């Protein structure tokens, strides 16, 4: 076996080469120009990631801003984030199920039903808020467990049982809400949380500092670990630039939102859930197994992964997120009616996940897809509202954007297979 180092004329003699940089065929990424070239190669190869949705967000923002400058006003952004959060949380669950290559069409009905359960316990029966919320989320989790049992043991396709669930839980909502609708008191804790609670400036900047430092710390820790293991550490300059961009970006956003009411508790909760899910998906064994099953279920099964258990956790999480989203949406509107969670909640949540870049074919996506996707849809809705356009146009535009997102996914998929990226 010849050592590849010896055949590499650029390597200084005696300097150990990191184990992952030894192959002479590797294209080294050292200068910023190398980095840009690598990025361009990835785009051409169909490795688009978040790029299309971020671009879309910028285009949408610019177009509406040119038409109506108040679209990007602090007040408008604050309310957009507030209204995006509940469906965004539902969409987060959809991302998990989509990663497995499955679908859940019933999240809207489940969210409405769970909200009704919460409202009945809280208002009609006068139970405590925590009990009511816990029961609602538990209802979601039980529904998810039931779905998982149907999927794993009976073998019903997810499309079919979730379609059945869509109808059945809409019926359950009507049955629970026999009186028509229930108003959630505006002064109840949950309504306050979803509508009127905002971080103070001090809290917000503190949070920004903590997030930035946590990011920096984790990257520096990675450098240390990789260096100790004899692997190429991440580029320090790149890390410093990214940290600065993150910190300054968040600080500026905090300042800008602070002109109006600032960061609502609800968007912060949503963002925290997104970061948590991203961590679970990318850094834990559970997340790795989720991606593996989405990529090749048989391979995952043969390598000893308990596939049924992973499916079960995904459906339970999806329905629990749907329940949580439904409860928060009800709190935001201060009422649960027979229309809660029906109509476009379902498709908005699914469309957001797909627009954000989660593949319908399984195995590709990220928790941030839910956040970016719902921001796109919310921006379209708010923008068209500002332009006094009726909901018919809004549906058509949303449909167009969804189609565009799926088309981009399909084209990228083809580019990946022709450039050998799977």
């Amino acid at each position, binding site marked *: *076996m010849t050592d590849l180092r010896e055949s590499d004329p650029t390597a200084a003699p005696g300097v150990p080469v990191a184990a992952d940089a030894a192959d002479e065929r590797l294209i080294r990424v050292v200068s910023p120009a190398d980095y840009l070239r690598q990025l361009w190669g990835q785009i051409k190869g169909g490795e688009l990631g978040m790029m299309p949705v971020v671009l879309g967000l910028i285009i949408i923002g610019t177009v509406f801003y040119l038409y109506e400058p108040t679209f990007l006003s602090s007040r408008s952004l604050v309310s957009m984030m507030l209204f995006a959060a509940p469906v965004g949380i539902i969409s987060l669950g959809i991302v998990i199920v989509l990663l497995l290559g499955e679908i859940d069409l019933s999240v809207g009905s489940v969210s409405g039903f769970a909200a009704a359960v919460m409202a009945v316990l809280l208002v009609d029966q006068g139970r405590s808020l925590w009990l009511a919320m816990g029961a609602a989320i538990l209802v979601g989790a039980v529904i998810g467990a039931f779905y998982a049992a149907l999927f794993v043991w009976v073998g019903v396709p997810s499309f079919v049982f979730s379609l059945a669930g869509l109808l059945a839980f809409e019926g359950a909502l009507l049955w629970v809400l026999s009186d028509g609708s229930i108003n959630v008191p505006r002064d109840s804790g949950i309504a306050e949380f979803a509508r009127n609670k905002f971080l103070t400036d001090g809290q917000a900047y503190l949070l920004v500092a903590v997030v930035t430092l946590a990011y920096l710390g984790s990257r520096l820790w990675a450098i240390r670990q990789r260096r100790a293991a004899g692997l190429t550490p991440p580029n320090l300059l790149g890390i410093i630039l990214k940290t600065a961009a993150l910190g300054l970006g968040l600080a500026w956003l905090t300042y800008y939102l602070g002109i109006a009411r600032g960061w609502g508790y609800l968007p912060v909760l949503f963002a925290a859930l997104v970061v948590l899910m991203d961590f679970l998906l990318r850094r834990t064994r559970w997340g790795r197994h989720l991606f*593996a099953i989405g990529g090749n279920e048989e391979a995952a099964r043969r390598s000893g*992964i308990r596939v049924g258990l992973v499916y079960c956790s995904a459906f339970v999480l999806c329905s629990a997120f749907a329940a949580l989203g439904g409860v928060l949406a009800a709190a935001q509107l201060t009422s649960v009616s027979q229309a809660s969670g029906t109509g476009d909640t379902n498709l908005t949540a699914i469309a957001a996940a797909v627009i954000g870049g989660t593949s319908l074919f399984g195995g590709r996506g990220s928790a941030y897809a839910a956040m970016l996707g719902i921001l796109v849809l919310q921006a379209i809705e708010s923008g068209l509202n500002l332009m006094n356009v009726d909901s018919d146009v809004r549906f058509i535009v949303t449909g167009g954007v969804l189609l565009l997102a799926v088309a981009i996914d399909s084209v990228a998929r083809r580019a990946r297979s022709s450039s050998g990226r799977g």
Partner: protein
Amino acid sequence: MTVTDYETTVRGRAERVLSLTGINKRFGAVQALTDVALEVHAGEVVALVGDNGAGKSTLVKTIAGVYQPDSGIIEVGGQAVSISGPSAAQHLGIATVFQDLALCDNLDVVANLFLGKEHHLGPVMNEVSMEKEAWRLLRSLSAKIPSVRIPVASLSGGQRQTVAIARSLVGEPRVVMLDEPTAALGVAQTAEVLNLVERLREHGLGVILVSHNMADVQAVSDRIVVLRLGRNAAEFRTEEATTDQLVAAITGASDNVVAARAARRAAPGEGEQ
């Protein structure tokens, strides 16, 4: 590795890592395996050959724990065991690389190597230690993989086979079974995989190589076990076996095309011998 090396490895230590005797397996009205015996020593490559329906796959799946034999004794490292399932086989140190490789195309090489066996600190995966171990494994196989952080989909057929074989080594097995590892590969890639098999032998592993390709079998194996109609038909030391002997043993007849041509070629040359 020369023949004398092989003699010292096998005869010197003679550690029998896997031995099957009197294996019977029946599917309904079909007796798939009848009284089959197989022995694998440490540092030895045993080729398992046979025609379609000879029982190779059944035997491989029996060893891998996919099927349970109706009767017979399986010994691993000298101790009689029963292999109740694929995970039991893995625990006993029997690793199998199936023909379809079972890789996840959307995951990178490291993720595929350690799938189901991720290194972790509490709930969090230890990527650094996995990547380091991945490089160590690939180096020990002299594998030609440029980067372990690229998705498996972008690798060539030979490289994918390499990843699959390297993955079988993650659990520190004693026996590695390769099911048709060169079936879909080109010339250079086949040579690459055969090199890997050589490397596995150098590491002191017992290797069972299932193949239809006589050239590959003769290039890399130490012993050839021929199955025909679910029975042990013949067993050869590779350096002593000729292709027509093998073909005769596989087909059960000496009057086939290959044997006839060999006979024609041998006939004028008889005087020279």
